[in-house]
């Protein structure tokens, strides 16, 4: 870049004004919401998912997710009885418009909705060089888009492929677990739109949340447990072929 002194003198005050608005920030909304009282996660019941794509559409509407990018998506697995290491996985347009009709054969089918696992020890927050992504005190992995440089280290670090660089904003973008909704007492857009209850928002710090009874009485698994990310998207009925 070739900046003349004149241009520089014009640009500097503009940059200072822009930076001032970043510094000022805004106070926390939702006065009745206390971050220390919550620890958010999600329960996903594979046996209830019908692959309708309602969650994907709802997420795109609620969060203005650009076409071809996904904060949540649905995969369809097709697995033969003995070859679990080579499942056939499809996810046409993230499952947004549903899936082609499947004919019964000798293999099994199931749907796996995916989203950010909101890991307690997340690799994505650890690699950020500027402190633009973090896990909030209530357990949600967020991106400060005014601070993000768009270096995409976090996109590479996420073992679950849940991040992308926003094509217009050029900064990292991801599932916020509908933070603007859950802090107002609403559930996430995907849970609100799921017709079968295959997705349930869970507050692990709330002793009355049905998640505790569910985790006690079911065989629940997280994705890639060997990576010790502290994932908080709990899957019921998860097949061993899912990765």
């Amino acid at each position: 870049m070739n900046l003349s002194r004149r241009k520089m003198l014009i640009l500097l005050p503009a940059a200072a004004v822009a930076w001032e608005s970043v510094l000022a920030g805004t106070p926390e909304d939702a006065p009745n919401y206390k971050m220390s009282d919550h620890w958010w996660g999600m329960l996903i019941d594979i046996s209830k998912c019908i692959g309708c794509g309602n969650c994907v559409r709802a997420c795109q509407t609620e969060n203005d997710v650009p076409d071809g990018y996904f904060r949540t998506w649905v995969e369809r697995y097709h697995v033969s009885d003995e070859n679990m290491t080579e499942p056939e996985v499809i996810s046409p347009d993230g499952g947004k418009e549903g899936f082609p009709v499947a004919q019964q054969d000798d293999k099994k089918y199931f749907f796996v909705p995916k989203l950010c696992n909101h890991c307690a020890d997340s690799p994505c927050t650890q690699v950020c060089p500027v402190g633009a992504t973090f896990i909030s005190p209530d357990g949600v992995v967020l991106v400060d888009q005014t601070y993000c440089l768009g270096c995409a280290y976090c996109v590479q670090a996420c073992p679950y492929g849940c991040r992308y660089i926003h094509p217009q904003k050029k900064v990292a973008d991801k599932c916020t677990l509908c933070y603007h909704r859950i802090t107002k007492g609403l559930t996430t857009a995907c849970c609100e739109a799921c017709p079968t209850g295959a997705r349930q928002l869970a507050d692990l710090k709330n002793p009355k949340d049905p998640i505790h009874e569910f985790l006690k009485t079911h065989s629940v698994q997280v994705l890639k447990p060997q990576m010790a990310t502290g994932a908080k998207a709990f899957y019921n009925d998860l097949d061993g072929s899912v990765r």
Partner: protein
Amino acid sequence: MSVFKDAGHLFRFAGLFVLAFLVFLGLRHYVVPKSFGQYGHYRGNAIGEIAQRPVKFAGHETCESCHSDVADKKKAGKHAHVNCEACHGALASHANADDPTAVKPVLPDTAVLCAQCHTASAAKPKGFPQVDPASHYPGPPCGSCHQPHNPGMEAGGAK
């Protein structure tokens, strides 16, 4: 005193060092946002900013506060746990309008809507009710026989 006799250059260098450190502190004070480090190595105010994004799905509690008649009808049937906006789409614009009647939601077309969930496919869980739209009374939209808020035929599905 003889020790410091020729040490002037050292003091000048130390002074320069202190000055540079003060400039660094001053700059740092200006460029680091006030809320940085409030909760951790990030800008604390970012949390509040993200929480202020607009809501587009009003939530079924909001719908039911006005449409209690539909909520009662739904409770009796198989769609009791299907939330309003799963079929009707995001309607916070309707619910939060000063005059909700002015923002009229579009009535979903049952010929398209029902098939999104109920088209038969071997990939779906076995217990889930599924039909082949090509052979299950093709032609009339589903809504002409099934009442979407309580779709079972035994419940007097016909409208």
